[in-house]
């Protein structure tokens, strides 16, 4: 049942598994679902495990069920309600006949018509769109068949809810906030035993006690600590201006996470040349040669930049746009030095547009694994950083 819906969901990149699909079938089998709206919520509860995928679910739901007019159990009740003389004592038989034929489309059309006619907020009453009252349109109303306008309603038609795509803001390929970045960066960890010996080592204690003829002898061990050292190197060049907010979020997340054994950050302009800067204004420079000597190779390195520059800026020895002086090495050679010195280097690129096919981007992406600066990309980058070589 509904098997194509499963593939529609897969199509929309909702991570559903057969496992979960079988649970849904079980739920259907046990007759837990009585109407479309319940189906919408239950299928979501069973199949979708993160609010970040609710939006894709809504789109899939709409695509699959939107084409079919929803089984309008509602129409019957609506008609019943409308034909009840107590509700509309002044309807003529012709009018009643017309109402009986009202389907979803007509309901929608009527809704739009009334919306146009209506000029003000309206609460109560039985015709205008508003809160309370018995008009089929509005919210918090008593009319169980009504169309919901904002606000929660008992009988929201499932397709209608899906259409509203209420969860658009939760998608993880779109937004990133500091907390989310922190969650991602927290996965950067390698636990090693370090620090003072203050954890009771039970096995060795028992061993020692036995050897000591039952006289207690305590043995201690060092607690486990994260041994990851992080080096964040960010492009602060002009073309990065649109992403300044995003980069500063990444920075403050990494900086406020007291989770790393060491955290260092540097800036560069377009492409790293002889010097990296420890301030964003790029006044305090430290020669890369020095840095490569003092920073151990087990630092995990994250470059952040759009990697878009003129070909010569990357490949020529005198390619630096800003300081037309003498440089020892071309940008590309510097990057290669990073690659050979550090074991784990990734590049995060906030640029997702056509510029990603830019020649210099291609060259750098060949050198370092390159990911989007999105939650998904960041997660993949972090996985890469903790992976074994």
């Amino acid at each position, binding site marked *: 049942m509904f098997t194509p819906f499963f593939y529609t969901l897969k199509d929309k990149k909702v991570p559903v598994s057969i496992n979960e699909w079988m649970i849904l079938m079980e*739920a259907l089998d*046990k007759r837990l679902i009585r109407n479309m709206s319940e189906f919408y919520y*239950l299928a979501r509860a069973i199949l979708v495990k993160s609010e970040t995928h609710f939006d894709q679910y809504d789109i899939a739901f709409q695509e699959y069920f939107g084409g079919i007019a929803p089984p309008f159990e509602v129409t019957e009740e609506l008609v019943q309600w409308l034909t009840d003389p107590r509700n509309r004592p002044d309807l003529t038989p012709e009018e009643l006949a017309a109402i009986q034929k009202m389907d979803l489309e007509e309901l929608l059309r009527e809704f739009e018509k009334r919306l146009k006619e209506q000029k003000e907020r309206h609460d109560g009453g039985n015709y205008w769109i508003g809160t309370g009252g018995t008009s089929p349109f509005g919210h918090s109303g008593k009319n169980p068949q009504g169309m919901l306008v904002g606000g*929660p309603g008992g009988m929201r038609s499932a397709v209608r809810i899906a259409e509203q795509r209420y969860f658009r803001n939760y998608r993880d390929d779109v937004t990133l906030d500091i907390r989310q970045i922190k*969650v991602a960066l927290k996965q950067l960890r390698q636990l090693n035993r370090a620090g003072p010996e203050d954890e009771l080592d039970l096995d060795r204690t028992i061993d020692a006690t036995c050897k000591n003829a039952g006289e*207690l002898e305590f043995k201690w061990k060092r607690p486990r600590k994260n041994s990851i050292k992080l080096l964040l190197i960010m492009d602060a060049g002009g073309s990065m201006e649109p992403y300044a907010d995003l980069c500063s979020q990444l920075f403050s997340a990494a900086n406020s996470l007291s989770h790393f054994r060491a955290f260092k950050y540097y800036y560069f302009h377009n492409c790293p040349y002889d010097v990296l800067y420890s301030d964003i204004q790029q006044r305090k420079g430290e020669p890369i040669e020095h840095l490569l000597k003092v920073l151990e190779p087990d630092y995990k390195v994250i470059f952040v930049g759009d990697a878009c520059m003129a070909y010569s800026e990357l490949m020529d020895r005198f390619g630096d746009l800003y300081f037309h002086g003498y440089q020892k090495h071309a940008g590309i050679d510097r990057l290669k030095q990073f690659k050979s010195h550090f074991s784990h280097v990734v590049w995060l690129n906030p640029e997702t547009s056509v510029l990603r096919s830019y020649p210099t981007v291609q060259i750098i992406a060949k050198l370092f694994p390159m990911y989007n600066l999105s939650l998904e990309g960041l997660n993949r980058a972090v996985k890469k950083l903790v992976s074994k070589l």
Partner: protein
Amino acid sequence: MKADQFEKFKGSADYVISDALKNAVNVSIVLKRPLLVRGEPGTGKTLLSHSISVSLGKPLIRWHIKSTTKAAEGLYVYDTVQRLNDSRFGGKDVSNIKHYIKLGKLGQAFTAPEQVVLLIDEVDKADLEFPNDLLNELDEMSFYIPETDETISAKHRPVVIITSNNEKELPDAFLRRCIFHYIEFPEPPLMEEIVKVHFPDIKSTLLKEALETFYTLRKIDDFRKKPSTSELIDWIQALMASGLDGKIKDGEIPFLGTLIKKENDIDFYVTHHVKKKAQTRGYNVYGN
């Protein structure tokens, strides 16, 4: 089994619940799957299990997860240090390991004489691998104690509610076994209901003004922590206790500290919003 043949969770008098969540709870009970609840802080994730426990008349066992909690602690703890101590200095019968096996919360839920509601609160606080370590136990509802060669299996499968604040991503294998519900932030009409549950005799003018102020504050995106339901309840309580009923004016929010908890947010609010309004309307800035 038909849908109406089991004890149905209908919500309790002191907890307002959406139909979608109610259904999710019932489905998780029928399908015997844990219910994973996620949502903004203060939307009543933890209270849900209390409400289920009250509504079904089953005892509630709470397991609060901390960053140091290990999955095995929920099953049982073998108190070797105590046993060592007893063997050296005398005490209980050292030869019987059972004296030193203490069941954890999960173990207690399994061995309870009747079906219980088990709350695993803030599962994401623990280590990343924590949920994976519980997979089998939650699936089979049993675990094995090697020390005593015993298998503890659930006499009555507990109703398992798990809450998460999304601090850490939960593993896929774990998620696949759960029913998931995301508690949306309540819209004003539902919020009105919720407030009325807590304060049945609140004056409608106060309620209206309080909610208006509250939702205006929530619209400010620059807050680090937006005020949530629990803050609103505290605030209304403060308002009622002080007899300030219905005297909230634009920009003058008494007890602002109960609504906004972060210093930065208060500063931000005072400088950006109150002052602006005060200047344009000639009010005095309150509480600065």
